């Protein structure tokens, strides 16, 4: 028999989002807060991100991932939040019952509010469909990061990295410092996916070649990776014939994107956005299903942990206030926009709007449309897909009447690095 307990707020996932949400629920007056984390430690992905670059926006100081996480863990320890590590949430019902297991047994927790903060997963080779055998030596960049930085194990000696996302760039430097040879980074698009700073300090500093408009079309080797075949691609990303070449290596790292982890959200029948892959949320990070909130990477992939903390704090407070449902504006991603989050606006009086552009552009105008009319425009000098544009909701003169609003980005496209 599972042990049944009740709680004001149950938070699923103990990464930066879950920790900040649990803390702010507690501070907003919740009497019982449970924080469930399936790993044996809190912090989510942060303890393995040993490089600096966290907290600049919030604390004006650059911390490493483990430092950022530990500050939150210490703050949590000073509250009555019940942090349960080694505890995996396995089932979630629309009636707000969480079923979880840990070494002590099975649990059934009924909550007034549930905050989803399960983070995201990395895309894998299966999703890319690269032909070849299934030899050892293919890792996602995040798994390689865990192996090197936490388990203390070097995944290979001669390495090719597919994708120029930040985790891949960071790992290129990390593996080089540990004595591996990173032979090249291959990017299918014609521009950088990660931050320019990471390109300069992780790639240029070590003279690692970065090939744009190229991809891996085959993995060679039966037991272990022996080589990969790389090809140039056209604008649509299709390999051009004749441009193939073999690169010897024993390891292929994939840094080709993240997907919000939403199995539980689906079980609870929470409506999901096809753009972000996560639940639709409003500025309180309240989902379309009453009593459920979603924050951090489970809602949309955030590149800065600082933003994750900001939105999680809002979710934590809102979960205690439990405001009744009401009519909201609905935001749609228009031309030039990859995703917007939140996609619902309750009042628009406080909170933030994050917009991820589709392309790198200069001389940028962000426009807000209500039907055929632009009601707000904002000019910014530059935008890149690696960095979300952050706007204060209060800056925007939201229309009186609730309805559909389209967000659009226009500008001059940039190729390559800058």
């Amino acid at each position: 028999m599972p042990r049944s307990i009740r709680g004001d707020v149950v938070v699923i996932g103990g990464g930066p989002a879950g920790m900040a949400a649990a803390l702010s629920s507690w501070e907003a007056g919740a009497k019982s807060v449970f924080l469930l984390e399936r790993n044996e430690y809190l912090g989510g992905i942060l303890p393995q991100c040993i490089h600096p670059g966290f907290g600049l926006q919030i604390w004006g100081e650059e911390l490493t991932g483990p430092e950022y996480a530990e500050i939150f863990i210490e703050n949590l320890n000073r509250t009555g939040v019940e942090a349960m590590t080694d505890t995996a949430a396995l089932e979630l019902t629309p009636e707000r019952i969480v079923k979880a297991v840990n070494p002590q047994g099975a649990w059934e927790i009924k909550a007034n509010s549930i905050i989803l903060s399960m983070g995201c997963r990395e895309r894998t080779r299966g999703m890319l469909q690269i032909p070849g055998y299934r030899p050892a030596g293919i890792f996602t960049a995040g798994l390689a990061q865990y192996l090197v930085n936490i388990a203390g194990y070097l995944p290979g000696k001669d390495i090719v990295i597919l994708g120029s996302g930040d985790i891949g760039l960071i790992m290129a430097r990390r593996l080089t410092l540990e004595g591996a040879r990173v032979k090249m980074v291959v990017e299918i698009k014609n521009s950088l996916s990660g931050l320019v700073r990471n390109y300069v300090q992780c790639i240029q500093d070590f003279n690692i070649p970065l090939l744009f408009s190229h991809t891996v079309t085959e993995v060679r080797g039966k037991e272990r990776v022996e080589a990969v075949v790389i090809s140039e691609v056209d604008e649509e990303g299709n390999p051009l014939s004749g441009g193939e070449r073999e690169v010897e290596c024993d390891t292929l790292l994939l840094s080709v994107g993240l997907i919000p982890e939403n199995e539980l959200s689906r079980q609870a029948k929470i409506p999901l956005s096809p753009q972000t892959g996560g639940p639709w949320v409003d500025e309180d990070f309240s989902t379309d299903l009453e009593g459920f909130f979603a924050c951090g990477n489970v809602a949309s992939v955030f590149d800065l942990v600082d933003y994750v903390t900001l939105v999680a704090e809002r979710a934590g407070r809102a979960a205690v206030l439990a405001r009744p449902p009401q009519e909201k504006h609905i935001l749609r991603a228009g031309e030039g926009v990859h995703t917007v989050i939140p996609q619902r606006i309750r009042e628009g009086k406080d909170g933030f709007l994050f917009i991820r552009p589709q392309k790198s552009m200069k001389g940028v105008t962000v426009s807000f449309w209500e039907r055929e009319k632009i009601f707000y425009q904002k000019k910014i000098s530059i935008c890149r897909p690696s960095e979300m544009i952050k706007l204060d909701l209060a800056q925007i003169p939201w229309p009186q009447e609730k309805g559909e609003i389209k967000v659009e980005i226009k500008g001059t496209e940039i190729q390559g690095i800058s």
Partner: protein
Amino acid sequence: MKLKEQKSREFLELICIVCPLGCSLSVTKSDDRIRVRGGCKKGEKYVKEEITNPRRVVTTTLRIKNGVWPRVPVRTSSPFPRDKIPELMKFLSSLEVEAPQKRGEVIAKNLLGEGVDLVVTRTIERKE
């Protein structure tokens, strides 16, 4: 005379990382002068430092004995001369520390005589 001048002059393209604009700056280096074009004042300062004295914060892990994890992550207390990073890494790979280690503690002082220390970034408890 002209030839000599040509020889001692160097052209470089550097990407500025001070702000999100990421300007491409063109740099002309003659014997004692550095000229930067294509950016703002902050960019010029960054490039001059980058050319004369490039530094980076170094983060890595050390082996740790009797810890709940086999590695303890560390960082330099301030940016370290970039050209000496390989030497620093070699030195650090020879180090081994004993658990427990607490975040914020200085684990090694004055690395390679550069006046920069090594700081623990994650608390690692002792294995029971």
